[in-house]
């Protein structure tokens, strides 16, 4: 996951808290092990390594692929989990790059490189059903855009099965709650200001009172690249292979489930300068920072 993860339970029962922590950690690691593109033995890794061939999948993977399909359609093709291959030419660890190179970054690709890699991107080139998935040769899929939020929602389901105490699950800023806190008090969530770097103190610029539901933040606070003085977000336009321009620096969306919030935030960012309009027209609660 590579981001701080925490589970908060409002209870005086230490044993319960330990048990809850274990259950959720186990589930989150299970999902990470299964869908991480960095793990060769994960389901994702096996699928990617056998591009061109049919690979057997289980029901959970089928449901996730179905969900990804819905997102592809809803976004008119801008959200495409087969765009993961573009990571070979894009590297978004802007926080370090900024200090090292102050401008040009080695991993900023050329137009040719992008064109070439784009031939291996395209959800339409994938076929799958309940039992198997087949990628076209040279393709890869990446569950990064939905994996973390899915893990949060799964964790909430498990938490609700275990206890009635209020629980908040936060995986690196994508979070959800099982219910409001005791006495109907909301959870207080601080949203990090996009301008965080090691030279400045971390400022929590905004506090949101979450009564129920989930919150996901999509943005470039940590993952971006700077080229010629311009800041490029890590959200790539799957059709052109280039990062979306004029997107807000950060979008936080509230929705009943975390995966919904996460997709809406990503879909909004994909709209670039129309991000806020897109969400406002949907009557979705959100906060954006430019």
């Amino acid at each position: 996951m590579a981001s701080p993860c925490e589970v908060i339970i409002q209870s005086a029962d230490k044993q319960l808290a330990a048990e809850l922590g274990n259950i959720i950690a186990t589930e989150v690691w299970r999902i990470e092990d299964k869908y991480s593109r960095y793990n060769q033995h994960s389901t994702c890794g096996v699928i990617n390594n056998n591009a061109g061939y049919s690979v057997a999948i289980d029901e959970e993977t089928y449901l996730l692929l179905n969900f990804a399909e819905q997102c592809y359609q809803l976004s008119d093709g801008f959200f495409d989990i087969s765009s993961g291959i573009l990571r070979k030419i894009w590297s978004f660890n802007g926080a370090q790059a900024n200090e090292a190179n102050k401008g040009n970054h080695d991993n900023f690709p050329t137009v040719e490189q992008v064109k070439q890699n784009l031939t291996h991107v395209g959800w339409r080139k994938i076929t799958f059903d309940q039992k198997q998935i087949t990628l076209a040769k040279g393709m890869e899929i990446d569950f990064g855009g939905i994996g973390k939020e899915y893990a949060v929602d799964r964790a909430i389901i498990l938490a609700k099965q275990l206890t009635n105490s209020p629980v908040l699950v936060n995986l690196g800023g994508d979070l959800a709650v099982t219910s409001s806190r005791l006495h109907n008090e909301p959870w207080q969530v601080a949203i990090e200001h996009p301008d965080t770097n090691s030279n400045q103190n971390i400022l929590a610029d905004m506090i949101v009172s979450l009564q129920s539901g989930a919150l996901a933040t999509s943005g470039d606070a940590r993952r971006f690249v700077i080229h010629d003085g311009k800041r490029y977000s890590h959200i790539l336009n799957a059709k052109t292979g280039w990062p979306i321009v004029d997107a807000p620096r950060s979008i936080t969306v509230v929705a009943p489930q975390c995966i919904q919030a996460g997709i809406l935030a990503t879909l909004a960012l994909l709209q670039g300068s129309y991000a806020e309009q897109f969400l406002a027209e949907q009557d979705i609660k959100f906060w954006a920072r430019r």
Partner: protein
Amino acid sequence: MKKNIKLVLFIPIIIGATGCSSLGVEPWERDLLAKDEMSLNASPVDAALDDHIYFSKEASSGGKGFGGGGCGCN
């Protein structure tokens, strides 16, 4: 003399507080501190009204903030 003693006692408290680097919280531990009621000046309107009353009726003023002039009440 009495005043000097009080001042001398006051300064070690500050040095003691700054000397303990174990004091303080990480940014993500500020949940309670972020609440309005944990602000050192939680009700500035109440404080302003009270300060005015006590400035008019007693010989001391300020301490928490400026105690200076402002009205012809004392």
